[in-house]
């Protein structure tokens, strides 16, 4: 009787223990290699020769900037976020090139970026990483992994195969071929692309995207003229301009129409959508990427003030997960230096 009970007891204990370990392994993704683990994006972002010690895994080349965001109060109708009240918030920013290689050529890297961390007087933080492309190249995080993997592939047909299953990629190709080039970070418009949900003071919700419109007049140049410019001319241009005078951008928020796609950043909303001016970003000082204050900042787009939240766009969550892996690896590298 007791012996049979003991055998039964041991069997139950073994089942519970093995079952728990198996469930834990499943939760951690060890049993599901197809899961979209953030490490797979980081692996696909390997530049030739690997990432430089301590550098970001994408947009590795950059410049830090310091400035302010002065709110006009115009965006308060879309979000009760502290930085949208009339007033001035601190801003830490970073211009970058859209490439995982720190040595990416400034003359021919098509995508340029600007990321910011805005800190309201009450301490609330808003982080965003934006690019100068008016829409995201692909519709889903899974498609973006396929695109990154194809981009790093030696197979010349790889990108074509991604384009065949993700027709939205053609729009990016068209933009890359036809959009004018400039010779300055200051002349670019930067777009947040992802849609977020703003909550106004009365609890109403609004799907919004944001952009920064340059106050600096745009002077387009040919790719040949860019190719003739010295290495790191964009960084040097920014330093020179900021030494002479502050640079500014107008921040605008666009609200989605009732039938606009808020889940797919590859689809721009129609141009006639309601747009409000939130205020002005003014940059006063630039600092080197390697030892500047933006070096250790993770521009995680899910760091949002109360009054802004993620919505059904899956990219902010995906970017947060991938940026975290990049941050964890590069801070570990810096610590081991």
């Amino acid at each position, binding site marked *: 009787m007791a012996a049979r009970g003991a055998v039964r007891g041991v069997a139950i204990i073994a089942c519970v223990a093995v079952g728990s370990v198996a469930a834990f392994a499943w939760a951690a993704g060890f049993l599901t290699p197809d899961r979209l683990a953030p490490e797979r994006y980081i692996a696909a972002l390997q530049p030739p020769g690997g990432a430089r010690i301590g550098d970001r895994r994408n947009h590795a080349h950059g410049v830090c900037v310091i400035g302010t965001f002065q709110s006009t109060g115009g965006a308060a109708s879309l979000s009760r976020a502290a930085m949208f009240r009339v007033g001035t918030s601190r801003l830490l920013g970073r211009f970058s090139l859209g490439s995982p290689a720190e040595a990416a050529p400034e003359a021919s890297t098509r995508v340029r970026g600007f990321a910011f961390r805005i800190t309201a007087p009450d301490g609330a933080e808003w982080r965003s990483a934006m690019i100068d492309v008016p829409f995201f190249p692909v519709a889903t995080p899974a498609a973006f992994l396929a695109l990154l993997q194809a981009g790093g592939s030696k197979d010349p047909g790889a990108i074509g195969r991604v384009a065949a299953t993700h027709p939205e990629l053609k729009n990016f190709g068209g933009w890359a071929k036809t959009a004018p080039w400039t010779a300055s970070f200051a002349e670019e418009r930067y777009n947040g692309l992802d849609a977020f949900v703003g909550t106004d003071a009365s609890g109403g919700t609004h799907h919004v995207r944001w952009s920064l419109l340059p106050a600096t007049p745009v002077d387009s140049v040919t790719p040949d003229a860019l190719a003739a410019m010295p290495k790191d001319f964009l960084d040097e241009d920014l330093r020179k301009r900021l030494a002479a005078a502050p640079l500014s951008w107008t921040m605008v928020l666009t609200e989605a129409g009732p039938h606009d796609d808020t889940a797919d950043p590859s689809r721009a909303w129609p141009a006639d959508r309601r747009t409000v001016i939130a205020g002005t970003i003014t940059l006063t000082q630039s600092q080197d990427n390697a030892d500047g204050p933006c070096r250790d900042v993770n521009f995680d787009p899910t*760091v949002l003030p109360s009054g802004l939240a993620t919505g059904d766009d899956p990219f902010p969550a995906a970017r947060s997960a991938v940026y975290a892996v990049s941050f964890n690896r590069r801070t570990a590298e810096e610590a081991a230096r």
Partner: protein
Amino acid sequence: MSTTATTDIVTGRFSPVQRVLHWLMAAAIIAMLFIGVGMVSTVHPVGLALVDLHRPLGIAILVLALVRLGVRLTRGAPPLPRDLPAPVQLAATLSHVALYAAMIAMPLIGWAMVSAAGMPVVMWGGVALPAILPQSDGLHAILWDAHRVIAYLLFALVVLHVSAALMHALIRRDGVFEAMAGGSVERG
């Protein structure tokens, strides 16, 4: 009838407050371990939702663990069966010390790690806790490693704890399980 007459049966019971704290925290800690490994395993928005749950749940566990430590130090625990071998008694004592240490250290390490990353320590509704460390790559690297390694060790400890509890409940039937679960020992 009894074939286990030589086994000492524990009749003492943990206080109701201790039992409520234990089972509440058991659910919270097991959930926390699964949330933790799950949230870093995917870029899917469910991962972000889990991160948003992980922070406040961790702080809740820290508060409960401190309350529980206070209760444990004042109320004590029923004695283990006298016939439990000394090395097993020692293992039981040490594993409980380790469990308490992990319950208190893990939320603090997580809080410190997020602080050292320079990220806001967001709870619910836009309320954030203050940073408990300055931003630091070196501290972040150490704390991130510690948080991961201790999480796996804690999971192993929880599996061991559950296995030992079931061993008392199903095989030894010595009242140790009932001291926390309630009920009385039935022997056939």
